[in-house]
């Protein structure tokens, strides 16, 4: 697979470390959220067959985190964003 890095252009997926579902950005609040919310966050996954938004870390490159939109049926990648931008858009980061 080739991941089209927003800053560096097309890069081999082997340069990246895979983290998983993009929902991992939405970590619950440790002070106010309950244990069930943390359980669901840490352990449960949608695991869809089809379009999947997921976190990839460019460890062998610029060490940026990316959000890749990829089909789990064909491996086709349709969108690549900086995770920073996605997190900001979700109000997770300033």
């Amino acid at each position, binding site marked *: *697979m080739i991941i089209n890095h927003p800053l560096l252009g097309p890069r*081999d*997926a*082997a340069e990246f470390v*895979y983290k*998983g*579902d993009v929902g991992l950005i939405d970590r619950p609040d440790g002070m106010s959220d309950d244990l*069930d919310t943390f*359980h*669901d966050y*840490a*352990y*449960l*996954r*949608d*695991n*869809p*067959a089809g379009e*999947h938004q*997921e976190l990839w870390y460019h460890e062998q490159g610029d060490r940026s985190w990316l959000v890749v939109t*990829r089909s*789990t*049926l*064909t*491996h086709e990648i349709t969108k690549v964003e900086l995770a920073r931008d996605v997190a900001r858009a979700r109000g997770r980061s300033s």
Partner: protein
Amino acid sequence: MKYSAWQVFKEGLTGNKGWKPVWREPEPKAEYDVVIVGGGGHGLSTAYYLAKEFGVTNVCVVEKGWLGGGNIGRNTTIIRSNYLLEGNQPFYEKSLKLWEGLEQDFNYNAMVSQRSIINLIHSDAQRDAFARRANAMRLSGADSEILDKAGIMKACPFLDFDNARFPIQGALRQKRGGTVRHDAVAWGYARGADERGVDILQNCEMTGFIRDKDGAVVGVETAKGQIRAKKVAVCVAGSSSRVMSMAGMRLPIESHVLQAFVSEGLKPIIPGVITFGAGHFYVSQSDKGGLVFGGDIDGYNTYAQRGNLPVVEDVCEGGMAIMPMIGRARLLRMWGGIMDMSMDGSPFITKTDIPGLYFNGGWCYGGFKATPASGYCYAHLLATDRMHEVATQFRLDRFRRGLPIDEKGQGAQPNLH
């Protein structure tokens, strides 16, 4: 028809005209006591043990494809019981004991071949860990032995003992481990279940659950219409999330692809199964002579039954590093299968919060060896509504209760197992 050497001899003399189809192609009834979703190895063994051991014969198996076409025909056929934790090891030892009597039990030649499994040791720390594992295995009634360097040199003289990064110091060996002809396992269980009255519906995709007004599952929608059931038993590892999402459930599972490889056929050169865990490579030799080998999962969510080239390179490098002679063999075929990677690397055989719905899955890349015990314990649960004593920890709620079965001690990370 009971298979025997005499039967083969008689049919040989009479033109092989007496062989019958091994199972029927029935039409579904309107209702069963148990509907099993998924006619893979585990689903078929569940049906077999339900009928044979627990007297539940009003059973139907719904399978989207054909028998032997899923992971039961895609794995690398290894059987073993060399686990560490109490939640796992007695279960896998139960499975190995069932493998040992399987062919007589279901009267089918599954070519169970106990030619040993060897896990290589490269450091003092690894020897300590494997000695602990060997003791845990013995506590469950399994066999194990630690080989020193001379012992492993005698067993496998062709390995690269002076490998600069991973010199071989010894090995953990389980002589009762080995390989089995995997598709014959599916056929044998299907035949045994069918003989006892179980209806096996091939090419019959399950498309949804039937719920009553209280939300309980009372049957399944299929390509051949509605089939009602007192209990619905899902057994579709690889596609568990897809099927259980039809009941509104999210699972502690990601689907990943594991690739496998086979070389051209060679004369016997490998004594049993050899694993090089430090380099992510393992190999055995099939009865046809092909070297069957593999390594890590690709490591990203996928339902495509094929992997990518970086893992191919990684596996071949692992093979060359530890067993340089493998470079003389030509790679014949490679393929991929989809694994239910659970959050602690251990499986589920469990009730769910939904009445009438049962779940078996999360086998990671260790499902094949578990086939007999998985079916036996799932049948036990379905017939008695209690967990079998060797499977009490395979609960779906174990993460919520803080009781994961974390064989590797690595935490909630599905792509590590």
